[in-house]
């Protein structure tokens, strides 16, 4: 067990990567269609909802420092319901992974490759994420730790360069409450990033007094995403819905971009790194759930199943990311709500019960 543990810093970086997932390319323009510049409030609202899961996670970790989520749930709610929850988690993480891939696929296809060959190029991610899922969380979290500086630096450079072009603050409160909640519902699947933490609850090494470090990473990455949205809406105003690659487009339409040269390589590399890391996280989560449901099968079966499912489903969606996007706003939000909000409530009840049990014992 010791060899598979990760530090709190690595955990924070994983969370940061999850927070960037699906939010920095396509989502700003999609959100704008629903709720205009008030999307920023939607974002803040969804982030705030996400944040509630963090203290629940820390409390649960305190009560069950070394136990797996599967074992905790099995003891409390039985094997059948636990397996059902893990099936939901499998679907949740799988579609998160597929969504990340689809959005990045479209970005690169439009930006560079322009032909179907990109499908092959992008499939090159699969061996990488399969390898990561097999070698485990410790290895890939260390890799993320190694590249984290470059990812954040790339992100910040993209934001900073956009500041050289004149921007004006967007108009707020132009939409109705219905638009607000529609937008919230439509994009809820892209949130709920802390679900991953519960899944690897036994792998995270937390010393006393260190807990706030995880808040720092979560807050910092949410802040970066929020700044991106503000700058994006400030820069593109009513045309924001036309810019499907928010982070990259912040660079492309800057004066300095043309003066210095093709700086979009910064965005490309940043997005590529983020995509690989996010896919690694989600595929690992998929394999963890798979192995919990089928404990007799080893990790290789899980990842082979993931790869086959991924290729088949991707083949269905290839070049038609509209299909993925329509799924995101139709049935996936229901799944997102269950995983992001109902499960943390369940975990809160479990940790509350445990705490009560401890107090009664002490009395």
């Amino acid at each position, binding site marked *: 067990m010791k060899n598979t543990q990760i*530090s709190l*810093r*690595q955990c924070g970086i994983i969370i940061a990567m999850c927070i960037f997932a699906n939010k920095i390319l396509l989502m700003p323009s999609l959100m704008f269609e629903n709720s205009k510049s008030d999307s920023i409030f939607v974002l803040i609202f969804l982030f705030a909802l996400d944040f509630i899961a963090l203290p629940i996670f820390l409390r649960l970790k305190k009560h069950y420092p070394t136990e797996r989520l599967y074992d905790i749930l099995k003891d409390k709610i039985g094997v059948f319901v636990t397996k059902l929850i893990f099936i939901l988690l499998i679907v949740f993480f799988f579609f998160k992974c597929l969504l990340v891939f689809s959005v990045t696929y479209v970005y*690169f296809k439009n930006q*560079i*490759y322009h032909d179907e060959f*990109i499908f*092959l*190029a*992008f499939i*090159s*991610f699969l*061996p*990488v994420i399969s*390898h*990561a899922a097999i*070698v485990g969380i*410790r*290895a*890939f979290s*260390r*890799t993320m*730790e*190694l*590249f984290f500086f470059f990812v954040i630096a790339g992100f910040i450079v993209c934001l900073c360069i956009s500041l050289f072009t004149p921007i004006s603050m967007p108009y707020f409160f132009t939409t109705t409450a219905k638009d607000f909640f529609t937008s919230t519902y439509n994009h809820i699947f892209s949130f709920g990033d802390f679900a991953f933490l519960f899944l690897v609850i036994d792998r995270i090494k937390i010393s006393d007094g260190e807990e706030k470090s995880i808040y720092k990473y979560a807050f910092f990455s949410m802040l970066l995403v929020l700044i991106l949205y503000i700058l994006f809406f400030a820069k593109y105003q009513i045309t924001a819905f036309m810019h499907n690659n928010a982070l990259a487009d912040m660079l492309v339409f800057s004066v300095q971009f043309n003066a210095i*040269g*093709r700086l*979009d*390589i910064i965005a*490309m*590399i940043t997005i*590529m*790194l983020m995509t*690989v*890391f996010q896919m*690694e996280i989600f595929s690992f989560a998929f394999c963890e759930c798979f192995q919990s449901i089928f404990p007799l099968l080893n990790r290789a079966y899980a990842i082979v199943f993931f790869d086959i499912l991924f290729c088949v489903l991707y083949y269905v969606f290839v070049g038609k990311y509209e299909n993925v996007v329509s799924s995101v706003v139709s049935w996936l939000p229901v799944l997102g709500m269950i995983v992001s909000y109902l499960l943390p409530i369940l975990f809160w009840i479990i940790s509350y019960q445990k705490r009560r049990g401890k107090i009664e014992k002490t009395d």
Partner: protein
Amino acid sequence: MPFFDVKQKIEELKSALNNSVDFSSRYFEKNGQEIGMVFLKSITDQALFSEALYLPLQTYEKPLDMEILRNDIIKGTDVKIIDDNEMVQEILDGKIVFFTNFSDEILAIDFLKFPTRVPSEPPTSPVIQGPREGFVEDLQTNITLLRRRIKSPDFTIETLRVGSVTQTKVCVGYIKGISNKKVVRKIIKRLKEIEVDGILDSYNIVSFLQDKPNSLFRQIGNSEKPDVVVSKLLEGKACIIVDGSPIVLTIPFIFLEDIQNSNDYYTNHHYSSFVRVIRLFGLMISLIAPGFYLALQIYHYNILPLNFLITIADTTQGLPFTPFLEILFIFLLFQILYEVSLRLPSYLGLATSVVGALILGDTGVKAGLISPPGVIIVALSKIALYTIPEEASQVTVLQLLFIIFGGSLGLVGIISGLVYLANYLNTIDSYGTPYLAPYSPRIQNDLQDAIFSKPLVQIKTRPKSFNPEKEKIK
């Protein structure tokens, strides 16, 4: 009843050593006291033997006993009492085995002598400033070079024999109280488990000591310089000295050690930090430059600044090869020239360079077979490779892989390759030390002497990565 039939024992030993041509024995009889001495003349200092043992024995008038022999007669050399079954091995180690008919004691007297090099500056690690001594092939000299620098009773050396035929002496050196005990125990255990006929060089035991023997990346450090090995011992590592090899191994090993160089510690720390960044940059250029160039040329040409793009378009127009084959061809050409220049005598090396650089390179460009940017990129990556010569072998293999990734998958292939590589390196632990420490995982304490280094006066603790027994430097 005599303890040994001396003449018979000499014959037995001669037979045990298969009547070897360098077998030599002396039989000595005085007042009914018989003495036998057996040795191999090829590895024994015969002049010293005559002067320090044979002549004093002949001139000694009183009756002999072993105590007198040890204390009064044998002078200026090591003597130890051995068992009957150790005699052959001691003779093979260059000792003179001494036995008598009046005592059951057998003495092994050290008169070992064989040709050795004088410690000189190793060709692989020259320094601008700092000590110029290097290890030699003689185990004892190498231990002396270390002992001279560590005048501490805690510096411990344990000796083992490895190789069923060669019986090579392998020493494990460490500083008690600093080096991690578990690491030392693990090294000794692995050395004891080695089952081979012979160990001819320290490299022969490397794969037995590595956690991942099939890995492309070396997980054991090495050095030819005693000052470097001592500094590693002081960090909490252990060293392995193999008789017959001028290369001393150090364990645990991390990737960062290849970025660091002994020169760094004999210059200003600002400058050493600067050159380490340059080395790292050189390594990255060497690793991905050809693949990246291919990715840009084939898939992402719109990223290139217009002037640069025009230059490339001009020079690559009309080439018979695709960009991928062109770079592959130049890469292989460079590698062939490199291999040839390594193995040819120096007087032919110049001719090869002329043929390679002028005829193949220049004429190839003029003939329109290869493009100048292609040659420049591959040459740059090959030169940059030697900013870290220790990594040259593995990076060369990786260069080829990145050429394939960049040429077939573009930038996505390069990034995928880099992440895969980092994931793989992060699975390697060298005796409990993460291979990419202190950056991955980040170990704040060890960043004081990583890529950027602090002045020595500010370094108060040993690197935590190596789990030393004592972290504070006193």
